């Protein structure tokens, strides 16, 4: 099954759309280190709303790379200080997340020295890779605070700690399918060697026998550069493959389909197919942690859009306020209509630019009204079916919309609502300009809530039934007891009766005896 994956053969993705590219602006201005901001705001939010526990308090001095928060459970990741300085606040603040969610944020006032904690460096050569154990690498992944840098922020070590399935393939996701975003492409251009090292480590950690390195077919000569390094290091189980630039071919499930022809089962994970998909940024971060000792405290962020004078990629400390990044890229604030974290298809718009960037913040987009504005008026759905043609999940978006609008949510579930990946292709093509994804998000959260409530009420029902049964049992027990007691009582009566009867008999006998005595007395007289 594994060896059948051929680098040349690609499979067709159903649906999908061709989008304008908009990537050249930020690429031509290259990659630079962003000077550290005066203050950084590090969010303690880990995925799915879990909050890490702060290990520092206001007034503490911290060093760059020091662990400042740890997760409550093993399902979270460590959070490190991204610069040296003093903790000046631990507060509730808007974070780089959808709806700009308020969460716990640690404010570090930087001292400008960028002083690192003691770093443990190991050169990643063949000898190291041969000697290190998978468990050590997985521990490193955990200690480095790695999460999926592609956008979902899933704690990376969890992918490697599942024992049920044997992993055979590592897919390296270098296919950034959203317009504007170039942080991954820039990373591949700048650090091909580190990437190869990281891939070898990830393969060792997962025991995958091969890796497929997926690139978009619109990238320049990255493929040959990476292949050159692979050849130099005499590696034969990493295949570099270009995939068509169709949105959303870079989505995890879609990429697996394009590369292997296999579909992740509905509601399942790539792990179910023996596949791990890893973003290039995450791989580079692992390589950095092992070779340089640096945990995940910085990432590459693309700043782009038509309101940015100097679009480019910055190596940015986690927690850096968006305003600081924008300031270094010639931001035209007045022209900006929407400020977006992420890409134009799935990114979320932020109310202002004070938020600190997160580990998953791959791009900051400033777009003017010219671009964000709709062409026509918002109208009712005419069921034109364009959305059906572009849906990569094979759904009927217009039917979902219809049912959700009519609050017929169970019908929407029947139409496979939960297989929607919220890529926004349907909303993009909609001639009636309907915000379709909003409907799906609403319905999903509503259904989850209803399920939760149903579960609760089911539990309550079970509890109620159990209580009824218990009461019934007690009643029966009491009744039985009473019956027994009654029987006993009846018995006493009988005994009493018997007793009194006997007593009577004795009395009678006594009386009879006395009578006979008297008679004899009388006779003897």
């Amino acid at each position, binding site marked *: 099954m594994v060896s059948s994956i051929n680098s040349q053969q690609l499979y067709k993705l159903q649906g999908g759309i061709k989008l304008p590219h908009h990537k050249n602006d930020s690429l031509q201005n290259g990659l630079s280190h962003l000077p550290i901001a005066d203050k950084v705001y590090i969010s303690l939010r880990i995925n799915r709303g879990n909050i890490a526990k702060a290990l520092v308090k206001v007034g503490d001095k911290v060093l760059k790379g020091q662990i400042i928060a740890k997760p409550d459970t093993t399902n979270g990741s460590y959070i490190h200080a991204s610069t040296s300085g003093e903790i000046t606040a631990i507060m509730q603040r808007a974070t780089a997340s959808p709806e700009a969610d308020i969460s716990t944020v640690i404010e570090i006032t930087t001292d400008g020295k960028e002083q690192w904690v003691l770093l443990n460096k190991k050169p990643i050569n063949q000898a190291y890779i041969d000697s290190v154990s998978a468990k050590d690498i997985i521990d490193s992944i955990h200690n480095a605070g790695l999460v999926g840098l592609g956008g979902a922020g899933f704690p990376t070590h969890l992918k490697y700690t599942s024992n049920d399935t044997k992993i055979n393939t590592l897919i390296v996701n270098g296919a950034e399918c959203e317009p504007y975003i170039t942080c991954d492409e820039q990373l591949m251009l700048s650090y091909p060697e580190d990437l190869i090292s990281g891939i070898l480590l990830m393969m060792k950690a997962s025991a995958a026998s091969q890796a497929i390195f997926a690139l978009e077919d619109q990238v320049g000569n990255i493929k040959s550069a990476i292949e050159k390094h692979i050849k130099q290091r005499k590696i034969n189980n990493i295949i570099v493959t270009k995939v068509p630039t169709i949105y959303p071919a870079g989505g995890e499930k879609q990429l697996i389909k394009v590369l292997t022809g296999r579909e992740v*089962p*509905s509601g399942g994970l790539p792990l179910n197919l023996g596949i791990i998909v890893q973003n290039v940024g995450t791989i580079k971060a692992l390589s950095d942690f092992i070779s340089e000792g640096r945990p995940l405290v910085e990432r590459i962020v693309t700043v782009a859009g038509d309101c940015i004078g100097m679009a480019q990629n910055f190596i940015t400390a986690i927690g850096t306020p968006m305003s600081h990044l924008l300031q270094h890229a010639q931001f035209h604030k007045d022209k900006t209509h929407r400020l977006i974290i992420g890409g*134009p298809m799935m990114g979320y*718009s932020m109310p202002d630019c004070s938020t600190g960037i997160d580990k998953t913040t791959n791009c900051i987009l400033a777009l003017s009204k010219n671009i*964000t504005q709709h062409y*026509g008026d918002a*109208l*009712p759905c005419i069921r034109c*079916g364009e959305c059906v*043609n572009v849906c990569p999940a094979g759904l009927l978006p217009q039917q979902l919309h219809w049912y959700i609008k009519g609050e017929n949510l169970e019908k929407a579930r029947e139409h496979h609502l939960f297989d929607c990946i919220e890529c926004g292709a349907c909303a993009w093509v909609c001639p009636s300009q309907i915000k379709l994804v909003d409907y799906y998000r609403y319905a999903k959260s509503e259904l989850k809530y209803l399920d939760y409530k149903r579960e609760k009420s089911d539990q309550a029902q079970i509890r109620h039934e159990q209580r009824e049964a218990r009461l019934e049992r007690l009643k029966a027990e009491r009744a039985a007891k009473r019956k027994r007691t009654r029987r006993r009582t009846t018995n006493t009566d009988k005994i009493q009766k018997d007793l009194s009867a006997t007593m009577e008999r004795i009395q009678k006998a006594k009386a009879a005896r006395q009578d006979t005595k008297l008679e004899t007395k009388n006779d003897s007289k």
Partner: protein
Amino acid sequence: MTQNKVFNTQSAPHIPKKNSVAKLMLTLGLALTPAILAHVFFFGTGIIIQLTLAVIFALCFEAISLKLLGKSIKLFLKDYSAFVTGLLFALCISPVAPWWISFIGMFFAIVVAKHLFGGLGQNIFNPAMLGFAVVLISFPQAMSMWLPPHSISPYAMSFVENLQAIFFNQFPSTIDFDTLTQATPLDLIKTGISQDSMMSEITTGIAFGNFGGVGWEWVANMYFLGGLFLIYKKIITWRVPAAVLLTAIAFSLPFYLIDPDNFIGPLQHIFSGGLMLGAFFIATDPTSGCSSHKGQLIFGAGVAIMTILVREFGNFPDGVAFGILIMNMSAPLIDRLTIPKAFGQKDK
């Protein structure tokens, strides 16, 4: 923490495609142009008057309905959907039909079929087809007045004569009543068959061309051309038209092969009457059609089968409108039975 909102925080996607309902509808109108020109070429300028009338009535009824329902007139008139309904209706009726046919037809199309069902996107029936079916059943005589195409007609009506015919029911004295009625090829066949003529006798008549009626087949060709343009522009997909046309051929062929004297040939079927118009422009109406891809194929096949059954065994010469209306009714059921499997649900 309340924050001052500096930027717009609408949800993704942030770069909408330049697409709109109005653009869609106008493209549909554009795709009808070749057929309209062919119509003018073969049947005279009457169709222009009918198109204008139907569109004016459609827009008036649309505006009145919107006003009464308290919806934005400006917003919905701009979507051009009533405009397209008017065009499609006018292309179904005779170029010399009296003006009130359009009036009544558009009343039922726009007010009854569209707005009483909830307006744009909510109608169960295709408005143009419902309007057409109402006038076809109610006014059979007015609906069957057709002029033969110019090439075989002893007299061609001028624009003014067309106006007089439509508004005052006055026809030039050179045109006798016989020429004026029962003149569509499908009418001729229906009458011919009922008089025990053989199909081969009927179709060698002057009104018949290579595959359909003279003139008619060219209008049908132009609908086909316009339809291809719509497929190219991705306004419609190939599924419904292909299903209609191929099913029409496949379904009519056995009848024709068994008894060619009493049944219409497959080519005659697809190039006559409203089948080509219906296949590309009306059965593809997404609002009243099926949404799943499989459902669309079933929908198209159903339209074709109904059309042929009506043409061969029914009382009406053509059955496209009835076929479409019956399939409109079945569309929700077909959709329910053809929910596609989602990604990752394929049995593998």
